[in-house]
């Protein structure tokens, strides 16, 4: 009897590939379109898993897609969170002041004293805090949008279960 294909392989391939892409400064702009890179990660993992399921003769349903998408999204979060943080720090792009500028540009009315306090804390903790915050958000968004992509992929690449052998009709009666 065939064994159900492993979910880890497609999740790892997709999560690592998209995670690396998501940590590269220009390519990660794709995430500006509704986190398309993370949705794509879950979607691609669902595609790979549906191929494995089809080859092994197993059903592939949206639930499987959601699960493999979630795992791929979490792997994406770990890879892009750590790698992105390191790349941003190395290139000097993970500046906390940029985050403050973005918050102020968005029109959010935040007490300047609170912002000063947070800025002081961030500066005293060095780049590590930025990497940890980035990792946290990458994991949260990876889980949500990876599952969403996996669900959509689960519907697109659905593989119906094969009917059991006994449903194919009784064997012909012996002749003679």
């Amino acid at each position: 009897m065939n064994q159900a294909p492993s979910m880890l392989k497609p999740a790892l391939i997709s999560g690592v590939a998209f995670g690396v892409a998501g940590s590269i400064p220009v390519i990660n702009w794709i995430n500006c379109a509704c986190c398309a890179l993370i949705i794509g990660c879950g979607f691609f993992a669902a595609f790979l898993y549906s191929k494995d399921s089809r080859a092994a003769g197993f059903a592939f349903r949206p639930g499987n897609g959601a699960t493999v998408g979630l795992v791929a999204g979490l792997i994406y979060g770990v890879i892009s969170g750590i790698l992105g943080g390191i790349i941003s720090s190395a290139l000097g792009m993970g500046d906390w002041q940029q985050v403050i500028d973005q918050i102020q540009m968005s029109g959010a009315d935040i007490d300047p004293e609170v912002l000063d306090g947070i800025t002081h804390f961030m500066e005293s903790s060095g780049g590590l805090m930025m990497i940890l915050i980035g990792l946290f958000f990458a994991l949260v968004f990876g889980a949500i949008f990876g599952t969403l992509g996996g669900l959509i992929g689960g519907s697109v690449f659905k593989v119906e279960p094969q009917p059991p052998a006994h449903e194919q009709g009784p064997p012909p009666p012996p002749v003679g």
Partner: protein
Amino acid sequence: MTENQKSAPRTSRLVPSLVTVAAALWTSGVVLAPWLAAHNSILGGWLRLLYRPGCHQIADRCLDLGFGPMAVCARCAGLYFGGTLALLWTTVRNHPMRPRPVWLAIVAAPTVLDFVAGQLGLPSLGNWTRFAFALPLGALAGLYLGDALIEIVRLNSSQTNPEHPGEDSVG
């Protein structure tokens, strides 16, 4: 649009309804944020920040309904509105609809081409055109999502109630 109509039995509407309400709330926030900001509410700024991780929010690329740019760009707004409408359609009909996968490539092409053109510095489309291009892509994603949700509910209810698969006491 050619589609594979399913003969699956009608299932509980609870889960798809909850997801549709969540999607509707999320989408309405896109319009609500500038409206609140225009009425001097602090919530407007915070609401706008909520959408920040998923959109660049460049004001020139956002639709304006008369009280300031929306909380997301025209493309994201099209995806959100399309997705919400498709989820609403699936939930109201309580019958999944799964278009052929080739449609995904067809409806994604204009948005992908526009995105690539923008990255290459080529002249970009107007905001309403970008919204109109993204709308069917969002709708298709919403249809697939609705199909996935209904199938998951159907499978779960058939496991808990094998006598009447797909039927549920709620909804």
